[in-house]
């Protein structure tokens, strides 16, 4: 709004709705109220113990001040950081459908390489959404007609031909909670974020990873990427490649390569193809070696 990108006629302050609780569900999952603040969720005992990847992703996002202010529902709905979207001047199919995409041939070092279309290559900016995608979270909404439970991967829409449509919410529909189902895999989980600046910056690439190893082989793995996708990117190809394999650098590299094979880089962000693979390997090595930075 401040940048004249959005011009709403009516703003509704929902901050006093009773939606700010973080609940541990009995079977080991979480229910996070849509208005729970990032900082509160990050330090909730159930999140820290059961889902370290979510806590870490939250704490690596934005700044302490912004984390005190930003709600979880707002985080999922935040708009992209593409400077052409935000300058209120350049062609942008997200801001002004049909006007074109200035980023395609512009300064696109920070833009996406996965899930792009010829209408939009803006990177989804959220960190915690990457962790939530890895954890198969479900977004609960309440609309004028009914309540819905939307699997989080379906909550984020690829730009395709309609980049202006970022999520499936209908007019009048509000996120009320995010549920994270119980999974034993989550206890060995990590969020790594790589960026030019040490803090207070969006990711060049980030990785949410969780693994469960049985008898030396990967029994379950969750992998999602931030900073490289037009939506928080669940790395399903890499996951499929890894299940049943021996945990080790070779299998990690192969999986990373398979995931990024689909990348469509532009000249200025081509390095992200390599960087993302190395980040995946680093995350998995860190989890399986107990190697920390």
């Amino acid at each position, binding site marked *: *709004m*401040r*940048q004249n990108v959005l011009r709403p006629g*009516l*703003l509704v*302050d929902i*901050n*006093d709705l009773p939606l700010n609780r973080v609940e541990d569900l009995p079977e080991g999952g979480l229910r996070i109220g849509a208005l729970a603040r990032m*900082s509160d969720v990050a330090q909730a005992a159930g999140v820290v113990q059961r889902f370290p990847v979510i806590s870490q992703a939250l704490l690596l996002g*934005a*700044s*302490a*001040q*912004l984390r*005190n*202010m930003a709600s979880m529902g707002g985080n999922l709905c935040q708009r992209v950081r593409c400077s052409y979207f935000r300058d209120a001047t350049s062609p942008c199919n997200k801001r002004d459908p049909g006007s074109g995409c200035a980023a395609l041939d512009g300064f696109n070092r920070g833009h996406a390489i996965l899930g792009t279309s010829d209408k939009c290559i803006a990177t989804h900016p959220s960190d915690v959404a990457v962790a939530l995608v890895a954890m198969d979270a479900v977004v609960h909404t309440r609309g004028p007609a009914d309540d819905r439970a939307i699997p989080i991967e379906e909550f984020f829409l690829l730009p395709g031909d309609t980049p202006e449509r970022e999520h499936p919410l209908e007019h009048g529909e509000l996120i009320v909670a995010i549920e994270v189902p119980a999974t034993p895999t989550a206890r060995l989980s990590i969020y790594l974020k790589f960026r030019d600046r*040490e*803090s*207070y910056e969006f990711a060049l690439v980030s990785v949410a990873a969780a693994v469960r190893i049985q008898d030396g082989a990967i029994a379950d793995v969750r992998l999602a990427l931030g900073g490289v996708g037009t939506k928080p990117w669940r790395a399903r190809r890499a996951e499929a490649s890894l299940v049943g394999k021996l945990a080790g650098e070779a299998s990690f590299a192969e999986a990373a390569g398979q995931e990024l094979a689909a990348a469509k880089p532009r000249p200025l962000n081509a390095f992200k193809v390599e960087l993302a693979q190395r980040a995946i390997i680093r995350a998995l090595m860190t989890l399986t070696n107990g190697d920390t930075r």
Partner: protein
Amino acid sequence: MDGEIAALPAERGPSAQAVTLTINGEPRPLRIEPRVSLLDALREHLGLTGSKKGCDQGTCGACTVWVDGRRALACLTLAVTCEGHEVTTIEGLSAGGELHPMQAAFIDKDAFQCGYCTPGQIMSAVALLDEGHAADDGQIREWMSGNICRCAAYPNIRAAIRAVRDAAGGE
């Protein structure tokens, strides 16, 4: 508090409205449009210019204030949404003319040069200690990274925070 909120009119604006904010413990009535940020309400309407405007878009931290005791960015907060909440600014930090220990430490450690980001740094630094995020330099660095100091007094800012932490008996 719920009752208070419910008593407010449902829809206000776009013209200037009567709003009462609680700033540094005092009720401050003013007339502002709903689009006025907390930062502009403080600076342009209430004469409280200690909170600084650096970027007006949440990327520098110069406007850091406390809302209900938690640090927040006044430039990204609409003033009308602060009704019923306690806002604390740098002007409300020190009681009765005595400097807060953090303010004194900033002077002693030369933790600023131009001084423009300093009120925000101090509001963050005091909150940091309250939050328990100053155990070591690594924590201080990360949890103070929402406040840009273009003069780059960062090492001295850390020194000031350490001094106040240690004088208070550590964490």
